[in-house]
């Protein structure tokens, strides 16, 4: 998407004017550039059209139909959207997804910031950075299975220790109260290293002399963090927040592996709901309508976030 907006090919009319003023050889050259530009853009454009634009348009079309995947879609107008308004499960899905996003983004960002600051100010060990990234490299299904076993109420290692400490056992994935926080913590474990690395890269852009003069003036680490690191990190932080918010809304695999939406719908997040509607209940049309609504919500949230955080402007310039 970035490619075609940044290097827009010259328009046919616009390209000929400056060409006339120059030598005839120059005019031919500019035509050649145009061809080459299209050539280089073609893979990205074709890919975008084929894998983004076409499926999106088709999805929007399906959202106005009754489509069970096995027979042809039948146009039903806004029926799916009407149904959506009265669908308890849909609003429950929005609610539990929101809950997850708050828990996950909150813990992930705070922890990520902490780790990035430690890497930035304390040690720059490459080995350490690599280790932090390891959980992110493990496939999500493996992460889910691993934690499901460790946290199991009867056979799990964690509950074994809790019980030995006299705290009793907890069904982390099976109690409606704990299931969602547990999923959020597991994903925080998996993604914090990655978030920390992005933030760390942002911190490296902050000129070192700022810290030197601050410490000469007697500022402590906390003061330097709140007065230098945090304000100057803002554009990167905003980007990380936007990206992880969207990623967080798309939570699916951990849930599909561990709780499957249960217990009592306490983890039936919006993506899982879409998946169930489409591939378990064969309501592809309805699932598309839910997906369209989700896309709109994400678009609005991203716009609001970018605005609030003034993400496109840096204080360093």
């Amino acid at each position, binding site marked *: 998407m970035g490619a075609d907006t940044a290097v827009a090919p010259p328009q046919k009319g616009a390209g000929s004017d400056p060409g006339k003023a120059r030598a005839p050889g120059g005019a031919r050259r500019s035509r050649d550039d145009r061809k080459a530009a299209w050539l280089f853009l073609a893979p990205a454009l074709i890919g975008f059209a084929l894998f983004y634009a076409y499926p999106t348009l088709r999805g929007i079309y399906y959202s106005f139909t009754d489509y069970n995947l*096995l027979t042809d879609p039948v146009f039903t107008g806004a029926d799916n959207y009407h149904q959506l308004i009265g669908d308890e499960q849909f609003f429950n899905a929005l609610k539990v997804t929101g809950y997850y996003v708050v828990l996950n983004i909150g813990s992930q960002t705070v922890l990520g910031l902490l780790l990035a600051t430690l890497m930035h100010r304390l040690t720059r060990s490459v080995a350490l950075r690599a280790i932090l990234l390891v959980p992110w490299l493990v496939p999500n299904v493996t992460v889910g299975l691993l934690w499901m076993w460790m946290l199991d*109420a*009867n056979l799990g290692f964690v509950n074994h220790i809790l019980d030995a400490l006299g705290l009793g056992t*907890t*069904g982390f994935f099976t109690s409606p109260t704990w299931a969602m926080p547990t999923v959020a913590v597991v994903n925080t474990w998996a993604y914090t290293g990655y978030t920390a690395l992005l933030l760390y890269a942002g911190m490296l852009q902050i000129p070192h002399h700022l810290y030197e003069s601050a410490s000469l003036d007697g500022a402590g680490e906390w003061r330097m963090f709140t007065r230098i690191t945090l304000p100057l990190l803002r554009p990167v932080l905003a980007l990380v927040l936007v990206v992880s918010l969207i990623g967080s809304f798309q939570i699916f695999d951990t849930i599909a592996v561990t709780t499957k939406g249960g217990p009592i719908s306490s983890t039936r997040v919006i993506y899982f709901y879409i998946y169930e509607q489409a591939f378990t209940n064969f309501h592809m049309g309805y699932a598309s309508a839910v997906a369209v609504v989700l896309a709109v919500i994400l678009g609005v949230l991203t716009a609001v976030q970018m605005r609030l955080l003034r993400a496109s402007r840096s204080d360093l310039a």
Partner: protein
Amino acid sequence: MSSKHLRLGAALLCLSATTTLVSCGNSDDDAAGGRTTLNYWLWDDKQMPAYQECATAFEKANPDITVKITQTAWGQYWQNLTTQLTSGEAPDVWTDQASYYPQFATSNQLLDLQPLVDRDKVDLSAYQAGLADIWVKDGKRYGLPKDWDTMALTYNTAQLKKQGVDAAELDKLTWNPTDGGTFEETIAKATVDTEGRNGLDPDFDKNHVKTYGFLAEWADGSQGQNGWGDLAAANGFTYVDKNPWGTHYTYDDPKLAETIAWFKRLIDKGYAPRFDKQSSVANSELLIAGKGAMMVSGSWTISTFTNPKNQQKFAFAPLPTGPNGRKSPINGLSDAIWAGTKHPDQAWKWVKFLASANCQNLVAERAVVFPALKSATRKALAAHQAKGDDVTAFTDVAAAKGETFQLPVTEHGTEINPMVQDAIQSVILGRDKPEAALKSVNDKVNDLFK
């Protein structure tokens, strides 16, 4: 350095995953030299070797046909099948299940086998009673029976013996939703706390239970095949106005509410794990790990419990007799032919072979599942006995009159599953009263049929 390696490894993993996916999508219609390749799908890995043997025998008899078997775990089976159907790449023949087949039948994905059955005079009376007719809708036949299953109690022999319960008592347990009968008494005896006191001991500590007397299944959809549904049926509950193809469910029946309330009391007494402190792993794993003494299980899981590698020893007993008698669901699978297959004649040959004694006897010898043919069932029973396993708890109930029932087959089955499951879980958790929760969910379920 190490992170680079890991990243490379991850990239390679992804790459291999994609290539497998792509190769999965390939259809092999390479009719080179007039040979036909039939794609056949099933989900049970334990049955795969038996059906591979059938395929080999079939190929020997039909040298111009090759059968390619694909096994996909139950959790992904139906989603994968739907995706393949949508893209027009479905297997020619697949293992079908009663609560999933209505969707395929109503969207014209299944070949009507009735004309072929009539033409080739397939003897449908050779199958266990009721198994062939599940697959008939509006006069069309959408599958031939391949196997059947019933439910029974599975118990840890050593644990029950230690508490003074002998096997003969277990064979004639009674149950009612008021005091739980001898079934509840046995469960209480089998429950042991960390101090070694059982559930009948006045000093029994329900907060520190070492072994639960009973492991109940709560992620059991709208039918409760692995527990609550069986006892509810023994209490006179019938699910739906008519079966198959009923259009009005009766989850508001007080007989169901009583049953669920009894389960809740069982948990409150400490005889079964609390809902919010239960395991994510299957009950069978817990039973094998010695965390529970008894559970309800299906005949398709027999080999899980009779596995000689298990440290604990298990045996099977019939389900308890309730106010309405003993009731086990009997469930059958079938082999169905895709309506869009390019090789309907060869596919029919294969399905007919799968449903014949030639294949079902081979399956019987493996003793993993009971084949649908009565003669093959007897062979499977003998094979189990030869291995020293007594599985009559499953076969006797199937042979007895009036002790089995068919699980409901209706439209909207997959939508009803999570709705009813949620309602029952909220009762078991103590959030809702049984009558109110079941009445409310029953209204929502019946709204689907309006």
